[in-house]
Structure formats: structure tokens, C-alpha cells
């Protein structure tokens, strides 16, 4: 990837006493270094991509410290990497997007948790839940419970988050349990500051190597018969040890309040939302001083029964503020209280919504229900603003009733190489009739949005080909599976291709080869064009993904016999190839590779290059497409076949016509799709391709001069 994190890397070098200013996820990264982490790995994905991206770019500094950084092929390989801490006193950290990443890692996590760890292990998961999330909505909490891992959910204050990173490793070592730390989206992107400590170079590291491997110790294998003993150890030794550490180091925070006979138990990550909610109903001030005593759980698994009992005992009522379902924490608290015969009325999901993010408004709703019941002098009036909000929303909705606001989902970037392929797919289906399309995770999933609205199912990252295995055998027409190169390497190669070949399935796979895992932030993958190639390229504008043939050779090596590679922007040829694949007599796996480099990455390369050329007064050709306003028929078929942000509408300059005409605005990168579509789909003849040549060569100027004189002579006004 070609984004630079120079400033961020400087921040990682800060020493004791210096103040860090920046985003939460970078603070966590700094926390890892302050904890003497020995190895770091993971798989990118919002909202935690930044952690790994920065570490990868900070390679020189990591080498200084002796920290090994690995950009893993997927979450499973990242989790497996943690095996290093089973035998050796190495602190290891990995990161990924959850819930999806944790699902992929689950196998290794079970096999890691069973023998337990010697060196501290911290798994930083981006809890992609609620507003802005891009995955199925589930809690990571379940994994901590079933595998016997600790789960940290720190208060979203940079200082506290870093402190919990440091304690996380120690907790893991004290309990032999791997620790997970869940960070919600906004916590990752919160901008704040904290006072740094010096980074610690790990005792054993890439600079201080171990002489000998550990001796053979069957107890450290996740293999019968010791697995049975390990299962017992979790309950008998590890969890109690973890609880001791949590209490001794005060990881969970007790905050006093005026109404000592009431209490609220809250996940650390929800602390700020809770405080604002309390403020809204007049039970807290701006400095976090609450009228209700709080127990803030920075560690949500394991819970400490004694701590909970002490907090709840003798109170008139306790409210558990917990996000998502099922309400694991509330259930455990209820069990613990019941066992101890503590009868304090317990509330939670009976007043708060079971599903979805607990934003301030939602939380305040449940909170005021509880407060009205138990807090003296609390009236309905404190909750009034919520009704006012609802009325306001209804009022706006009424005003817009005749024409509700259209959504604005993300979509392909300007000049994206994937858009033309969907144009071709749309046209191809006009010839073959509609086909079942198994979609996948990645930028190409934007093809499920307008104007394409394609895709019948999404079963996970790299799963498209596998997910049609049950469909294609029972369908008259062939099915099509869409997959990005990101998904292909993440696991599509094995779960999809290998299985299809092994079973001799009659399937069609369309691979988007854009050279990067783009949706996750254009990180490099094994099929990314080499830096050397980028350096060598004379014309920096050209797509370079064709220079890396790893995907093609891999597929051939696995025995794929029907393989076609098509340039993404050649819509006509792509349509023909897709029709061939869907109708060919060849049975077995047919693979179409759409080749076109991620436009984001290309532009990052092109812009500075062009600027340079212009500065040096050298010849530069810029391409832009345009629409003739008086020829455009105002039907917008071109837009229904493209959706490019720069192909938009303007009022019709013709006073006789009423419908707006299409127009190409600034920002067009001249990818050529407009022209290709105009031909492939026989759109109206209003499109033109303009080539603007700055600093032309002398002979060009000469020819052009003569030519334009004649042309002008031919032109009428």
C-alpha cells in the first residue's frame, strides 16, 4: 500500500513523559511496544487495520527493538502464530476485525486456549458492531466464554486503553489464558492523548535469539489425553488466577455515588455513553461524577463473583448496561446473586434493547425507565427530550413523505476497475438470461448496490465459490461466483477452487485481480505488483497487476483447464468471455480473471508523477470523457450501466426538454468505461473522449496547427 504513516511512526517512538496525541488504535499500538511485545501479526479490516498497517511500515524501528511483524494470510494464520507463546516467554499480539475474523481464527484459538500460554497473549479485535459496521452483528464475548479466554473491554480513554494493554499481557501470564481486547469502532477512531512510557525491547527477540527449542512437554499439546486435564485446569486454576489478578490490580473500577443503595454495572467500552445518558437525565455532571454508584467492567470475562456480590448486596436495585445479545454478563450476575441468596432486584435487558448499539439516546431511554422506578424525585420530565426527538423525526419524515431521502451506500471509486466488469455482467445476462450470482466480501460487494443490484448470497470472505456448490448441481443455468484477489488468498483458493476441482464441479469463477485487498485499505498481498516493477514502469498510468502472475500460475498448478484473463475496462470482450464461460461445452471449473489495478493505488502513483512532469515542462496527456448536452437523450441508461460518481446529471440546457441530461464532472480519471459502455451497450452517441495534451512536442504543434485550420474551415457556426 502506498499511504504513508510517517507521523504515526514518529508517535510510536515517543518516550517516558512525552504526550501522545492521536487515534485510539494507534495508542493501542504504542501500548504494545511499551509492554515489550516480541511479535505482532494479524489480518487487516476496519476498524483495526491501522494497527498492522503502521507496524508494517515501521519495520525499521521494529527491527531496532527486535519485534517481529507478520502480515498474515488470514485470521487463522494470525491466531496460529500465537502458538509461539505456548512454550516460550514471548509476549505476542495479533489483531483482526471481529466477529468475522474471530470466526476464521476459531480453530486455532481453541487449540491455543486449551494448553494455555506461558508468554502473554493479547488479541486486539475490532468489535465491528453498531453504526458504521460492515459485518454481521454478533458479539465476540461468546468466544471468550467457550474457549476460556479473558475479554478486556476498556473504558474508551486513551490512558486507560494503554493501561489495559499492559495489564492484558500480565493478566494473560498470571492466568495462562489468552486475552482478547474488544475495541468498538468509535473507540478505535477516538482522538485523545496520554502520557507515554518508554518502549521495552523484548528479552527474547529477533535480536536476542533463543539457543535451543523447549523440551518435549505433552501437557502443552492440544491433543488427547491431556485435553481433558486442560479443560479442568481452566475452571480450577486459570480462571481463579485471572480473577485474583483483576481484583489485586483493580482492573474493574468502582465509582461511588450519592444514591449508595443503587448501582449500575457497565461494560468499560460503554462508560462514556452511560455517563452522557446519566447527564441527560440529570444524574451526572460533565466530569463523570455520577449520582449512582458504578461498577465499570474493564474486564468482562472472567467476571469476579465476589466483586459483583459485594457491589449488589444490600442495594435496592442494580442495572446492568450491556450491549448486544445474548446478555451473557447479566445472566452470570443473576446466577451468582441467586447462588448467594442475594435478592437485590436486577434489571438490564428488560429495560434496554436486546439488539443493537447502545447509543446515548437508546441507553437514556432504558435508564430513565429504571431511574423513574428507583431514584427518588426522578420524574418522566427528565426523559422528555427523547419524545421531542421522536416528534422532530416524524415532522421531517412528513415533510419528505412525497420523496423520501435516497440512501448513499459506499460504491466503486471513480475509475474503479471493478465497475466495468459489473457493466459487462449486466449486459451478459441480457444474452444468457439471469444467472445465480454468489457474491463475496470485498469492494466488489458494492455490486450488490444500485445500479447493479447483483448477488444472491454472501457467505463470508472468499466463500463465494464454495457457497454455490449446492446450487449449481440443481440449476438449469450455470451459476457465477464473484471473488476478489483478497478473498481468493484469504481462503477462496482452498475452500472454493480446490473443492470445485476435486469434485469436478461445473462452475464459473470471476476473480477481480486488482492487486490489493482494497476494501480493507489496499494492503499488499502476494499478487501485488512488486515495488521494483512500479519503479521500472515508464508510463506510471498503466495498470501493473498483469506483471504478477501468482494467481494464474497457482490456478494452473491446481489443474484449472479453462482460464481466461480479460482487461477490466474492455466491456465488450468481458461480456463475450462471461457468455462463453456460462455457455461453453466445457464442464468443470471455468475461471475468468478481470485484470485491472486498484484505481486508488494507481492514482497515488500517477498524481505525483504527473505533477513532476508538468513542473519539468514535459509532455503530459490527460484523458477526460464528456457528454454532448444537446445529443444526450436524458434517459440515463449510461448511468444505470455505470454509477460512476463523476457521471452525473445537470439541468437540461434545452428549454424544450424537461429531463436532466448526463454530464461528466471534474474528477473523471478517464478510465474509459463511458466509451466502452457506449459501444458495448450501443448507448446514445453523446459520449466523447477528450485527450488534452499539455506541453506537446513541436511536431505535434505543427500538425495540429495545420489540421485545426482546415477543420475550422469545415465547421459551421
Amino acid at each position, binding site marked *: 500500500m502506498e499511504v504513508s504513516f510517517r507521523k504515526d511512526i514518529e508517535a510510536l517512538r515517543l518516550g517516558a513523559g512525552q504526550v501522545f496525541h492521536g487515534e485510539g488504535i494507534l495508542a493501542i499500538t504504542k501500548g504494545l511496544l511499551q509492554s515489550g511485545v516480541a511479535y505482532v501479526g494479524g489480518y487487516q479490516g476496519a476498524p483495526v487495520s491501522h494497527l498492522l498497517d503502521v507496524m508494517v511500515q515501521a519495520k525499521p524501528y521494529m527491527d531496532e527493538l527486535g519485534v517481529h511483524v507478520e502480515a498474515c494470510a488470514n485470521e487463522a494464520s494470525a491466531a496460529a502464530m500465537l502458538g509461539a507463546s505456548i512454550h516460550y516467554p514471548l509476549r505476542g499480539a495479533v489483531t483482526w476485525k471481529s466477529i468475522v475474523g474471530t470466526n476464521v481464527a476459531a480453530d486455532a484459538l481453541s487449540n491455543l486456549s486449551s494448553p494455555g500460554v506461558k508468554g502473554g497473549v493479547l488479541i486486539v479485535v475490532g468489535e465491528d458492531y453498531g453504526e458504521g459496521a*460492515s459485518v454481521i452483528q454478533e458479539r465476540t464475548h461468546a468466544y471468550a466464554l467457550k474457549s476460556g479466554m479473558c475479554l478486556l473491554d476498556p473504558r474508551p480513554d486513551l490512558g486507560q486503553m494503554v493501561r489495559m494493554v499492559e495489564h492484558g499481557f500480565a493478566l494473560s501470564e498470571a492466568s495462562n489464558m489468552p486475552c482478547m481486547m474488544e475495541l468498538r469502532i468509535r473507540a478505535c477512531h477516538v482522538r485523545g492523548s496520554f502520557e507515554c512510557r518508554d518502549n521495552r525491547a523484548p528479552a527474547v527477540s529477533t535480536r536476542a535469539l533463543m539457543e535451543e527449542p523447549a523440551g518435549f512437554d505433552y501437557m502443552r499439546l492440544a491433543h488427547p489425553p491431556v485435553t481433558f486435564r486442560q479443560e479442568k485446569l481452566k475452571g480450577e486454576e486459570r480462571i481463579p488466577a485471572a480473577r485474583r489478578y483483576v481484583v489485586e490490580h483493580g482492573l474493574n473500577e468502582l465509582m461511588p455515588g450519592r444514591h449508595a443503595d443503587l448501582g449500575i454495572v457497565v461494560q468499560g467500552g460503554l462508560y462514556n455513553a452511560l455517563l452522557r445518558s446519566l447527564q441527560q437525565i440529570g444524574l451526572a455532571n460533565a466530569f463523570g461524577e455520577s449520582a449512582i454508584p458504578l461498577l465499570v467492567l474493564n474486564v468482562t470475562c472472567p467476571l469476579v463473583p465476589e466483586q459483583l456480590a459485594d457491589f449488589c448486596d444490600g442495594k435496592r436495585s442494580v442495572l446492568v448496561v450491556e450491549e448486544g445479545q445474548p446478555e451473557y454478563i447479566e445472566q452470570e450476575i443473576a446466577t451468582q446473586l441467586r447462588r448467594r441468596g442475594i435478592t437485590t432486584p436486577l434489571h438490564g435487558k428488560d429495560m434496554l434493547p436486546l439488539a443493537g448499539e447502545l447509543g446515548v439516546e437508546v441507553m437514556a431511554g432504558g435508564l430513565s425507565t429504571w431511574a423513574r422506578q428507583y431514584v427518588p424525585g426522578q420524574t418522566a420530565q427528565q426523559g422528555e427530550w427523547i419524545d421531542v426527538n421522536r416528534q422532530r423525526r416524524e415532522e421531517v419524515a412528513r415533510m*419528505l413523505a412525497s420523496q423520501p431521502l435516497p440512501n448513499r451506500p*459506499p460504491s466503486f471509486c471513480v475509475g474503479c476497475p471493478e465497475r466495468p466488469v459489473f457493466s459487462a455482467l449486466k449486459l451478459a445476462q441480457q444474452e*444468457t438470461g439471469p444467472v445465480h450470482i454468489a457474491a463475496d466480501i470485498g469492494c466488489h460487494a458494492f455490486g450488490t448496490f444500485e445500479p447493479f443490484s447483483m448477488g444472491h448470497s454472501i457467505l463470508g470472505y472468499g466463500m463465494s465459490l464454495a457457497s454455490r456448490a449446492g446450487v449449481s448441481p440443481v*440449476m*438449469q443455468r450455470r451459476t457465477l461466483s464473484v471473488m476478489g484477489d483478497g478473498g481468493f488468498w484469504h481462503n477462496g483458493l482452498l475452500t472454493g477452487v480446490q473443492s470445485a476441482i476435486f469434485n469436478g464441479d461445473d462452475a464459473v469463477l470471476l476473480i477481480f485481480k486488482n492487486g490489493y485487498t482494497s476494501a480493507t485499505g489496499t494492503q499488499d498481498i502476494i499478487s501485488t505488483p512488486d515495488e521494483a516493477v512500479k519503479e521500472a514502469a515508464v508510463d506510471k498510468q498503466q495498470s501493473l497487476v498483469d506483471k504478477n502472475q501468482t494467481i494464474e500460475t497457482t490456478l494452473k498448478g491446481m489443474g484449472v483447464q479453462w482460464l481466461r484473463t480479460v482487461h477490466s475496462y474492455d466491456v465488450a470482450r468481458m461480456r463475450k468471455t462471461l457468455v462463453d464461460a456460462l455457455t461453453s461445452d466445457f464442464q468443470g471449473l471455468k475461471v475468468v480473471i478481470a485484470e485491472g489495478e486498484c484505481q486508488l493505488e494507481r492514482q497515488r502513483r500517477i498524481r505525483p508523477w504527473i505533477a513532476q512532469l508538468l513542473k519539468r515542462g514535459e509532455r503530459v496527456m490527460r484523458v477526460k470523457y464528456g457528454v454532448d448536452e444537446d445529443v444526450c437523450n436524458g434517459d440515463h441508461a449510461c448511468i444505470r450501466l455505470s454509477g460512476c460518481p463523476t457521471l452525473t446529471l445537470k439541468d437540461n440546457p434545452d428549454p424544450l426538454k424537461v429531463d436532466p441530461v448526463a454530464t461528466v464532472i471534474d474528477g473523471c480519471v478517464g478510465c474509459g468505461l463511458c466509451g466502452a459502455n457506449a459501444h458495448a451497450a450501443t448507448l446514445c452517441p453523446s459520449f466523447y473522449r477528450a485527450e488534452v*495534451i499539455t506541453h506537446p512536442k513541436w511536431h505535434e504543434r505543427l500538425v*495540429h496547427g495545420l489540421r485545426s485550420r482546415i477543420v475550422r474551415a469545415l465547421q459551421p457556426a
Partner: protein
Amino acid sequence: MQTTQPICVLVCALGGEGGGVLTEWLIETARIAGYAAQSTSIPGVAQRTGATTYYLEVFPRPLHELQGRRPVFSLSPVPGTLDLLVSSELLETVRQIGNGMTHPDRTQIITSSARTLTTAERMVPGDGRADVQRLLDVVRLFSREHQIFDMSRMARDSGTIVSSVMLGAIAGCGVLPFRREHYEQAVRGGDTSPEPQNRQTRASLAAFAQAFDRVQSPRQQAKWVREVVDKVVDDVARSPDGEAGTALPEAARKRFPAAVQDVLALGYARLVDYQDERYAATYLDRLSHVLEAESKRDPAGEKDWAITRETARWLALWMAFDDIVRVADLKSRAQRAQRVRREVKAGDEDILKVYEHFKPGVPEFAALLPAAFASRLKAWDRRRIAHGKPAWELALKVGSHSVLGMLSLRVLAGLRGQRRRGSRFAEEQAQIERWLAAVVAGTSDGSWDLGHEIACCGRLIKGYGATLERGKRNLIHVIETLATAQGSDADAQPQARAQAIAAVRTAALADDSGKALDAALIRHGAPARPVQAQPIRWMRKPDAAHPTEGGARNTPSTQGKSR
């Protein structure tokens, strides 16, 4: 402004507009000014042109007054408690208002008047754009104070992106307790020289300054709002290149009421420019029949001669139907060349090459041939298609900047005379007459509304090739099924049919697949359109009888796969 509660600012932007940098600047500004602040965002994949928001909280009293106490900030905006909403896109502003974010007693709104149309708005065959006026009304109604100006244009003029304009707006409105130099220092990022080295920094500061001044001087606001509204109006009023000059003949000006004169003049000029005076005369003549019918219905012209007026509009456009001759003519004019130069922002020293994308097929050529030849040519093409071949088409990239390209365009444009003799000309005239007859009949035998609705159906006719064919099919179908009373419901009220036609027309413009149209037809007791034959490459599953024969390299087994 409250002094015991944080100041809450919500920023709405689209992916790639620099919202991240903006929050960085704001936090840095707070640090410089010595205030506690916190920002959050939810970028995710919204970076890919989607809509996203950034949220900022600042405590209104400087750190040194807090005796070491630290405010606890919220990570997400709380509906109804915003002090400031800044947005780079009008519809997104309204979306947040719709979410209940702003409060008319508390929230100041600074929004760009610029629209970045959503795909849903752009892909509609007709006009799917949100009504700007209504959006502005919402902004006015749900804000304590509002400023509206075109942030995108301001950013473009300063050669930067909209984030620095938004920063200037935030600084200018004074909701946050920072001084102008604090913001500028944050933008400069260390560079204290009066004239920053970095070009981007200079551009950012320029945009910042512009927005700052704009927001600080509220007087200009009213003017700006007006401009936004007026823009829509005068854009429509502008007349296109070319046709100025050809005046309406005296006789016509006498014959037609004043209410239709402007459209009539445009229509007449269009047809002279398209064909010749004779053709334009036919236009006037055809229109006079409609006028006749309407004046019987509405002698006093109480309805402002709307039937004649609408017919005048759509008739002119239909009679000036697009063909290769017309397109070649339009694309080879000098004004057009200049327009392209403007649009692509080519410098005076730059060389500009323009390639026209044409793909004429058999119909386009047949259009210019006499009926006999034309039908033979079309028959040949049909046979090709029947044999599974694609329809014959000629994909061309004509360089209108080149001598040969321009020459060929002019030659094509010169075939104007041939157009009359061509087969398509006759076809179009016949269909036009059919529509006009329906308008006249609807007006005189039905009701004024019925006539009017049928006239408005002229809007369905536009474009080329498939689009045009679809439009004609729809129009004819409407005329056949709804314009005249059907056997079954012969006594169906003209009013009812008028309403039906109105509804069906709107549906026809909703989506090109015609789903909405057919639904509307059936709803109004008319049959759905007949299904059009379309060649499809049919794929039968190869030997579906016994699957997984052949292809498989191994016979599938579970051995060695169990764990």
C-alpha cells in the same frame, strides 16, 4: 452557550473529502488554544464515496480553569444536543436533521448548497433528483441559525478539497471558543513563515479564509440562498446553442394565443434548424388542429392553452427526432468544439483531441433508405440474429479534431435532404399523426384533462435505438388501451381515464424495465404491455441425466478428509 456542558459539533462529509484531516485540525486547534476536546469517526468503507460523519466535543472552559478535572466526552452525537452541524452536501445535511440530530432552539447549521447526486437519483429514466427547495426548507425549519453556500465551488476556486472550507466555516461561526490564528496555526502544522512553503497548505489557508469571511458576514447569506433557488430557474431559461434568430412567421404569431408563443417559437426554430421552413410549417399546421380542438373545449383559454402548449413542446421534439444526420450536425459545429474545450478545461496552449463514440447499426442506415431497400436490409439483419449472430453494428471512434473525421461528419450532416426520402421519416410521421389524433380526439370527445394528459405523454418519446423504441411502444400502448374508451368499459369516465394516463405516464418514467408501468396499467384496468421477443443464448445443463461424469479428476470420497 452552556458552560457546564461540552460544545457538540457534527460534521457530515462524503468519503474522500478529507474529513479525517479536518478532525485532526480541530483537535490540534483545541490543543493549541488549551481546551479539552475529543473527536470520533466511523469511516469504515464509507471512504469509498459513501456518506459518513465526524463528531467533535469541546469543553467550553479552558483546561487551566478546570483544576485538573477532566470532562468525560461522548463518543457518539446525541440527537437534539448539537450546537453546530457542518455539512459538505445538502442531502446529507437533511439526512442528519431527519435523524433528529439538530434542534431548532440550539443547533446552528452551516451546509453546502452543493448536491452530489446519489446513484438512486441519477439512474431514474426521467428526473429523480431530490427537490432542492424542499431540502432547504427543512434546513431553515430545524436550525437556530443557518448558513448555506456552495462549499465545493469555494474549495475548487482555492484549488483544494472541501475540508479546509469546512474548517473556515466552523472557525467563522464562532461556536467554538478558539481564535482564528489557533485554527490557522493547526493548518500550518509548524510552518510559521508568513507565506507557507507547501502549496497545499497555502491553498488550504486560502479556502479557510474565504469560508471564514463568508460565514462571518451573515448579510450575504440571504443572497446566497436566493442564488441557490434562482440557479435552478435560470438554468432552464437559457436557450441552447444555434437556434437563435429563426423568428416565428407573422401569420403563426397571430394565429396562436400568447400563452404558447415562447414554446411555439422555440419549436419552430428547432425544426427549421433540423430540416427546413417547409417542415416547420407542417409543425404549425399540425399544431393548429390541436389548438382548434382545445378552443372548442376551452374557448376562453381559462387553462392557459396548456394542451396546445404541451403538444407544441413534445411535437417539436418528436418531429426533430434524433438520427445520425442530426447527431453528425450537432457534433460538427464550431460552438460545440468550444464547449468541449471549456468542459475539459483545456489550456490555450494545450492540444485537444476529441473522439466521438458512434455505433450505428442496420436501423440507423435503413432509416435513410427508401422503404423497399430498408425493409430488405432489416430482414437481412433479422436473419443474422435468428442464426444466433449479434445484430450488425459499426463501432466507430471518429476524431472530430481530424480533417477526415470532420469531413465525414459534415458529409453525414449534409444528408439532411435524404432524410425526407428515408423510410424512418415516413414511419415517424405516421406515429406522430397517430398521437396527435389521440390528443385531438381526447380533447373533443373526452375532456380537457384527457386531452392534456395524452399530450403530456409526448414526454415518453426520447432518444435513440432501444430507448426510443421502448418509449414509442409505451406511448402507443397507452393510446390504444386508455386514450379511447374500451369495449368492456365503454362508459368509463374521461376523467378517470385522464387520471389513469397520468399515473401510467409517471410509472413509465420510473424505471426502464417497465415493471412499474405494467403494474400501473393493471391497476387501472388496462392490460400489461405485450412481452417483447428477445434472443437469449439458452443453456441446457450438459447431460443433466448423469452429473459429475467427465470433469471430475477424482471420484469424490470422504476418506482422508475426516479429522
